[in-house]
């Protein structure tokens, strides 16, 4: 390569290569840009295909790492000082409140975006064609995000934190055999206290970030290895048009990042992260609710025996992890809802989910009294086994209905069922967040 004479402008803004070859070389030679291939399929760039959810999630992770490290400088993970260190941060440290707000809201948004990312990948069949591992990895990353949120929730040591964690970890004790042991290990004792705070802090700032960075890198690397994001099968003699990563992909990422940054910043400026009164173990708030993303689970607990309320999500989680084995039809990859019929199935599934779940909640709250109907049976059966089996039977019914009455194929019926399950879960969560008042009684939020 011959030395070129550069103008001063080029010396300063040298990084913009302006022909395809050098653009591709830049991507290949750049550590960060090399997570992308040098060229990407043009249809894969369609924003309404990915909604940028994976990218937005990873930008949020970057925000979280940046602000989290800054927060560590002033945070003190001791019961005596944790709360006051937050107060100090918010009142004495320049930009302290802003940094905390960004961290808080990014973390909450991350739960949403990574969940939506899961939904998006499912709907476009992104787990197919050798992507089983990355699908499982993505699921693992989602649980990691929840673990991050859960451990971070405790750190301000206010009433909200203390009681959400107390409620959250009390769910653990319902897990048979190991539940109590795991809970004691995490809490460093039977109750949330100084050891818990230290444990959660260490997990939040050291253990989880290490795992997260490794798992994220793995996740990105797998996307490359799987040949980029999922795309529809090209037809016979059809060629997928490819464009260079610079500028086509990078400019989209830049725009998404810019918008996300502005949204987070403005939101963080105007909506302060909550900080309630100092944690007081002797004054539980009423209702004592877990963090909002666990309210679906807490709601489920109101209706089922704890064991059933654990088993049901566990079954579903395993089912979702095994989706690549359950839905092996590969020709519909990259098509939203698999097909036009699948779109109908998803819509219908969502519809019955939003109708049936509130009805079931009302039914159980006001009319149905299973233990009263069978007073001699153990509650494990009346409130555990029966609702669990009924729910699973419901899933079977819906699947069967889609197959028989809807004349859908297996893959499309699964879309309908998945849509039903996810809508039900979201509905349960919303009921738990907004429709539960004192003593977890049903109330109207307005």
């Amino acid at each position, binding site marked *: 390569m011959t030395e070129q004479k550069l103008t001063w402008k080029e010396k300063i803004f040298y990084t913009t290569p302006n022909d395809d070859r050098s653009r591709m070389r830049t991507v290949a030679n750049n550590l960060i840009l090399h997570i992308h291939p040098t060229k990407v399929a043009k249809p894969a760039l369609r924003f309404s295909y990915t909604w940028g959810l994976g990218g937005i999630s990873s930008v949020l992770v970057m925000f979280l790492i940046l602000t989290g490290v800054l927060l560590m400088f002033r945070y003190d993970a001791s019961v*005596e000082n944790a*709360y*006051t260190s937050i*107060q100090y941060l*918010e*009142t*004495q440290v*320049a*930009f*302290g*409140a*802003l940094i905390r707000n960004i961290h808080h809201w990014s973390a909450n948004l991350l739960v949403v975006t990574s969940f939506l990312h899961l939904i998006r990948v499912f709907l476009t069949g992104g787990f197919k064609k050798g992507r089983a591992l990355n699908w499982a990895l993505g699921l693992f990353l989602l649980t990691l995000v929840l673990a991050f949120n859960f451990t971070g929730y405790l750190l301000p040591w206010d009433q909200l934190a203390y009681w959400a964690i107390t409620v959250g970890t009390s769910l653990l004790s319902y897990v048979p055999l190991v539940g109590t042991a795991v809970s004691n290990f995490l809490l460093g004792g039977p109750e949330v206290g100084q050891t818990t705070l230290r444990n959660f802090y260490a997990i939040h700032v050291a253990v989880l970030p290490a795992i997260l960075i490794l798992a994220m890198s793995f996740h990105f690397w797998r996307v490359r290895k799987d040949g980029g994001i999922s795309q529809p099968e090209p037809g016979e003699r059809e060629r997928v048009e490819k464009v260079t990563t610079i500028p086509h992909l990078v*400019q*989209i990422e*830049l*725009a998404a*990042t*810019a*918008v996300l*940054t*502005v949204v987070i*910043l*403005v939101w963080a*400026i105007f909506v302060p992260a909550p900080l309630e*009164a*100092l944690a007081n173990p002797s004054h539980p708030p009423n209702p004592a609710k877990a963090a909002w993303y666990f309210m679906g689970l807490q709601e489920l607990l109101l209706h089922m025996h704890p064991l059933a309320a654990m088993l049901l999500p566990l079954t579903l989680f395993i089912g979702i992890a095994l989706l690549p084995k359950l839905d092996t039809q590969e020709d519909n990859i990259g098509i939203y809802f698999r097909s036009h019929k699948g779109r109908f199935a998803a819509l219908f599934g969502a519809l019955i989910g939003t109708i049936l779940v509130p009805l079931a909640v009302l039914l159980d709250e006001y009319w149905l009294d299973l233990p009263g109907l069978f007073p001699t049976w153990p509650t494990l059966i009346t409130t555990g086994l029966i609702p669990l089996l009924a729910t699973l039977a419901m899933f079977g019914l819906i699947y069967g209905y889609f197959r028989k009455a809807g004349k859908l194929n297996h893959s499309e019926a699964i879309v309908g069922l998945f849509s039903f399950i996810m809508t039900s879960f979201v509905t349960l969560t919303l009921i738990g967040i907004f429709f539960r008042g004192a003593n977890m009684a049903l109330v109207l939020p307005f």
Partner: protein
Amino acid sequence: MNKYNVISFFGFLALVIVFPIYAWYEPTQRAEAQDNLQNQYVTDASVIYIENCAVCHGIEGEGIGATPALNGEALQTMDYEELFKVIARGRYGTAMTGWHEDEGGLYNDYQIQQLVALIRYADWTQIGELAASQGLIPPTLPIPSVDPEMVAQIIEMSAESGFEWAEGFQLYASNCTVCHGIQGEGSDLGLPLNTADIQSRETAELIRIISEGVSGTAMVPWHNVLTPDEIESIVGFLQHWDEIEAEGVVLTPPEPIWVDVDDPESMLALGERIFSTTCVACHGEDGSGGTGPALNSQQVLTANTDEQLTNTIVNGGWRPSSTMPSFGDRLTSVEIEALVSYLRAWEPTAPFVENPRGTQQGGGPPWLRTEDGTTTTPGGGNGGQGQGQGNQGNGQGQGGPAWRDSGSPPGQSNQGTTGTESPAAAEQGPTIAVQGTVAAIENNLLTVQLADGSLVQAMLGPPWFWSEQGIAINAGDAVSLEGFESADHMEVNWITNQTSGETKFLRENGQPVWTQ
């Protein structure tokens, strides 16, 4: 430019605009957050204070008895660590115990930090308000009042040491009952003292215990507070307590009065209590009138809204001649609210009073009226009687701590002085005529020098009235005027400027012309 670059451009533009604006306001915002946090600390701490500290340190941090006041500047500027340490660990040799959890107390670091903030930044009158809004009205230390009859009874018991016992009895009542109980029965804080064991102890030993205290307990060395003679008299009382009790002299426990502020009945009761201790002296029994207007009259109650009544209580009388002092800083808002509701409760049954204005404007309470309806001259003794009824009448006065009653309404003392005036003019009260030269005139306040050199201040109606309708009066003019005595000046019926020959009538038949 494609759409993504446009979005990026505006995104970064927004960042470049939003961030500096935020950065500019950030210090202000932080200062605001500091203020809010400080308020929150003080508010949280005042709840703690009212629960546990006010009993000894006073509801407004004024200190009670031997317990130091907290509302002084010295404490506000005291070292933070020192304040924290005293609250957390207590002070050796005093009744101040350690309040930190580690010392067996109730509070953690954070709450003690809040208490320190309270001492440094509290607005103590607001804490009194807060206490009132929680129903602790008026705040009282559980110190029993000593009936003079009891004292007399004790003095009669023994010729040589009756006085000593009586003094000891009174000292015990005001200093020791908090810990040792009203009847010496003891409490968590102090031993029982009304026992055979104590009575059999050596005098010297008891004196030593009281004056030196018992270290490690809340028993303070009392030699700081009491004289040796006083301590001796307490010992004398303790040693003869059984005899005194046998005579039937027993202290009755005062109840700290908690009022349910949401219950109209108890608010009415509170209003009645305040009226009968604070207002009765001027406004008469059941608002029948006195120096001040008869409040229990159709005219007053229909003419004034609750808001107006509240205003008058808070700010004092609005008439220039009014002697009604402002009670805004003496009563809490809850008390004032209770008082207004008490007055309002009269309305349905209130009689029509011929002239509801106070004695000096006619009318007056029944005991000041003669049978033919004219008002007798209130003597000094009468005034005193009115006051006595207010403050001591059948023990109702116990609710008000001394500092609340300290400023007795000036109207009362004034009533005594009017006794020297000649009885005249039944409608107007005692009319006085004055002749002299104008020493000064300032707005509506006229100062007249009499022939004997004494100065008389006269109020020429409200300032707005006099400035609009008044006559020209200059310093040095000879004036003659007629009026009647008021709080610290006289009210004018008419005035003649003899220098210019002008005459102005300010009141006709007792009615001020500016109200017509």
